[in-house]
């Protein structure tokens, strides 16, 4: 159930409405927008039948939310959510006007390669760095990532370049450790329905990048976001990264339609991973263009200084030159969609 308040509602009226709802054992969530304020009710809605909500002072309208996801639903927020990542020295934003691009290697392989990749992607216009420390690999014999050492390298390179960093957290036991080092925590596709991990991420104060599972529906993705939000963390960015279909010409099928559908169903920002979707460097740019045309708020792209020598996912990684050229072409697609590409934070400060 959501309650839209009158435009001239007072704080005391809002407090009163919330007290009435909470005294029935429900919880409330307040969303203040530029033009309206929304009080979302969470819990067993049947208890609300006995309250004449519409007659409470300050209430404009009362609408039931029929979707199973509440906090993640479009109706629950007065405006679209802008997720802010990082701090004053390195920051990025998702869901506002400009499109933010995250780029970097699949996994952190060493200091030199990470720094070189970070400098290259920053120069090309990326506003955030990615790099895997813990890698969920299909084979237990494949390279599993440098772990804690990689986290320290990410912190170093963040300081050197001013790019905030995102890295994957695979396990509830790693959440605190990764949160100490990274600006944003990524839930990989294979962990999208790891509910204990999602709940744990709800308790940290770091934005979460939630990737859609290989075989997950849009509804399941939003329910996964709901898990994180219901546990207290409302800074969630959704990521479409391709789903499993009968098609074998590409590794996964990028579900372009999911982008506008997610934006219709939810107030959360939506970004796209064209690298994993196609599984082929040649497909990254066209899929990125399609994503932006369809309304994505950002991209996450794999870039390796030397893809031939990459320890993981070399086939789908762009080299720095190809990435720079994609970024140049991307500006026109962004402009056609009425958007622009975000400028890295400290470049903005210098300008």
């Amino acid at each position, binding site marked *: 159930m959501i309650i839209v308040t009158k435009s001239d509602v007072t*704080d005391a009226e809002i*407090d*009163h409405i*919330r*007290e*009435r*709802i*909470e*005294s*029935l*054992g429900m*919880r409330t969530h*307040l969303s203040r927008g530029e033009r309206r304020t929304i009080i979302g009710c969470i819990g067993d809605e049947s208890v609300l039948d006995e309250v004449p909500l519409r007659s409470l002072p300050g209430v404009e309208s009362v609408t039931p939310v029929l979707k199973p996801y509440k906090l993640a639903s479009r109706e629950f927020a007065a405006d679209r959510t802008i997720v802010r990542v990082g701090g004053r020295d390195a920051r990025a934003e998702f869901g506002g006007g400009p499109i933010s691009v995250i780029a970097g290697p699949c996994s952190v392989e060493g200091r030199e390669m990470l720094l070189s990749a970070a400098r290259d992607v920053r120069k090309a216009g990326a506003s955030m760095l990615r790099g895997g420390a813990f890698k969920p690999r299909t084979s237990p014999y494949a390279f599993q990532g440098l772990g804690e050492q990689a986290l320290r390298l990410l912190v170093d390179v963040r300081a050197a370049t001013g790019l905030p960093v995102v890295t994957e957290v695979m396990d509830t036991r790693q959440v605190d450790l990764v949160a100490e080092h990274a600006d944003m925590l990524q839930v990989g596709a294979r962990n999208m329905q790891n509910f204990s991990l999602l709940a744990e991420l709800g308790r940290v104060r770091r934005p979460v990048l939630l990737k859609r599972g290989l075989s997950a529906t849009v509804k399941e993705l939003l329910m996964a976001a709901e898990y994180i939000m219901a546990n*207290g963390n409302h800074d969630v960015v959704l990521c479409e990264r391709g789903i499993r279909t009968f098609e074998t010409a590409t590794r996964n099928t990028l579900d372009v339609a999911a982008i506008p559908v997610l934006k219709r169903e939810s107030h959360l920002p939506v970004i796209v991973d064209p690298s994993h979707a196609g599984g082929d460097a040649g497909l990254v740019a066209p899929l990125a263009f399609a994503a932006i045309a369809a309304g994505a708020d950002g991209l996450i792209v794999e870039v390796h200084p030397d893809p031939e020598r990459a320890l993981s996912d070399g086939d789908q990684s762009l080299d720095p030159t190809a990435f720079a050229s994609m970024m140049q072409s991307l500006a026109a697609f962004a402009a056609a969609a009425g958007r622009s590409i975000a400028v890295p934070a400290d470049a903005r400060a210098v300008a």
Partner: protein
Amino acid sequence: MSSGEASGAGERERESATAELARCREEIEHIDNEIVSLLARRLTLGKRTGELKRVAGLPILDPTREAAVIRRVTGVARDAELPTEPIREIFWQIVGMSRRVQEQTPESLA
């Protein structure tokens, strides 16, 4: 002013900032200790109210009272010009903790 003098002044400024930072952190630790002991006192009272509710034949879970507690502290926070939503979150945690203490029977507490 020569660059040597300038960097000397910068050095002194850094040292005094580092010293003040250490003092601030010490005071923060002191405040944290106070918060924990205040929570302990609050929980002791919560335990007592649980016993009294049992004697008076009242239910332990009292959502009306919980909602009133939250509304009251929201007002206090607003008057103190603190952000109200985080304060509400903190107090929902405290109220929940207190309720769990009350739900324990005297035997299970012993």
